[in-house]
């Protein structure tokens, strides 16, 4: 019996997202953020002129997932590589995708100066308050009291200082056009993250300058919790330290 009901595709894999098995752990936020970036690339129709700069860390394999030209950067140097790319070929669209160790520890110098020059590229900064790939060491964004492989008694202010608030730090500079902190711990915030990332890419297309979206994300494996508790850790522990919202939209 045919009813004549027409099938409609309401959800599909973005064109810019490769059909591959994920290497990320259960409950990790990278998959969600990768998908958002791919959706944005599709919606803006920029896949064929986009170059991604992969960091060092869990998301070094970014290029396995996002289907565009890509170059690996040394640890922390992605903003310098992106600067070289955009200065040499301003017609290309370029984004860096960096974790907290990459951007806020070893690459602090590069991100601050790229932002300060107002380089016309987009940075996706994934903050999960821990080093993932190396197995759960303290990140510059690790919370006070948070345990890690290298802070077994919890991060102590006396020994390790306070978590670095990257958005607030960059917001002291004149040049950046867009700075926003979002999260992917629930659907509402996933949607807000997409909106921010879309804007961050659109700014680049419009030639406006440097845009950064900091995305609070889950790392249940290295936090030693289950995925559900991971989402709670973001909303209950991280958000109070790293408040969500837009800091700059010029």
């Amino acid at each position, binding site marked *: 019996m045919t009813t004549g009901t027409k099938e409609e595709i309401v959800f599909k894999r973005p064109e810019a997202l490769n059909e591959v098995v994920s290497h990320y752990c259960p409950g990790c936020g990278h998959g969600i953020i990768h998908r958002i970036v791919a959706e944005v690339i599709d919606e803006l129709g920029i*896949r*064929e*002129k*986009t*170059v991604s*700069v*992969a960091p060092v860390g869990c998301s*070094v394999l970014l*290029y396995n997932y996002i*289907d*565009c*030209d*890509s*170059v*690996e*950067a*040394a640890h922390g*140097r992605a903003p*310098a*590589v*992106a*600067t*070289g*790319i*955009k*200065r*040499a*070929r301003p017609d*290309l669209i370029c984004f860096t995708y960096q974790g907290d160790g990459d951007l806020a520890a070893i690459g602090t*110098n*590069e991100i*601050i*100066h790229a932002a300060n020059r107002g380089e016309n590229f987009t940075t996706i900064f994934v903050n999960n308050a821990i080093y993932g790939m190396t197995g759960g060491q303290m990140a510059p964004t690790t919370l006070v009291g948070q345990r890690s492989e290298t802070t077994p008694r919890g991060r102590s202010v006396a020994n390790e200082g306070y978590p670095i608030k990257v958005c607030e730090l960059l917001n002291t500079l004149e040049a950046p056009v867009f700075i926003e902190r979002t999260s992917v711990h629930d659907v509402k915030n996933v949607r807000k993250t997409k909106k921010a990332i879309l804007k961050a890419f659109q700014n680049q297309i419009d030639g406006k300058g440097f845009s950064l979206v900091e995305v609070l994300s889950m790392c249940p494996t290295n936090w030693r919790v289950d995925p559900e508790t991971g989402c709670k850790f973001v909303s209950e522990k991280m958000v109070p330290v790293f408040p969500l919202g837009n800091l700059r939209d010029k």
Partner: protein
Amino acid sequence: MGKKLLVAGNEALGEAAILAGAKCYFGYPITPQNEFTAYMASKLPEAGGIFLQTESELAAINMVLGASAVGVRSLTSSSSPGVSLKQEGISYMAGDEIPGVVVNVQRGGPGLGNIAPSQADYFQATKGGGHGDYRNIVLAPHTVQECVDLMILAFDLADKWRMVSLILADGVMGQMMEPVEYPEKVDIKQYPKDYILDGAKGRKARIIRSLYLVDGVLEELNNRLQAKYAKVKEEEQRSESDGVDGAELVLVACGMCARACRDAMRSLNKQGRKVGLFRPITLWPFPEKVLGAISEKTKKFLVVEMNAGQMVEDVKLNTTHDSDVHFYGRMGGGIPTPPEIVEKANEILNK
């Protein structure tokens, strides 16, 4: 060729880079090469290129990496301590197999050292410098004219082999003024650009990477690199020989030391001594073929360097086993003088 101009080495390097089609310069101030950076700041934008003073040497070399990855000729320059910082990026560029030009106007070391001329970065330049098994093409100018010629060659070789070309000058070469003739136009050879990132339009996405986690894949990359280096070694050795036929003693030196050796050679020849000069122009690949052939006939060698004895190791490796290889060097800004070299040569010849 154009008209003769009196210019300093640093300026000659800059003008030659522009003539060679460099479109991006990224650099950080350090003595004794600041005139080079200033020249690029002044002239490269006029030539339609990009000049950027960077926050660090690390940033500079990684910007070169980025520009090269999208197929644009780019370079950075520095002096010894700064070049140490660039080693990270140079190693990545080797693994990525992308071209680029780096200039090292060497100063005294180790550490902060001083700002006097030195050749103490020979090992760093020719044996790797950064981590992993890789090589750079290393060119050593000994006149300001050669700064021009080798800069143009450096870009060509970098593109041809998809390697980093390193110009290893010493502080004297950067500061010294000599007449040069710039070519009116450089014929820039085009090599396949099937690796560059220019947007995956109508083709599969390209990835420039040096991370290979799957078993055996990194070994394959290394085998490919070593095969390439073997070809470079076969095809790109360059050197100058002066008066080596029938010489009792051959002086071996590059850069500034080659100039002192040429003076010393003339004095020794006047004294009736048959002394020649062998000057490596490519320090890597080391010109072993010509040196090996010389050592079939001449058995005495005196290697003169502004370091504790670095190139002398390559001379020993590439001369016949019965060769008698001596060394004279000064460090920390000391420059071997012609009379010192004459004295040392006579000592060897009188043995």
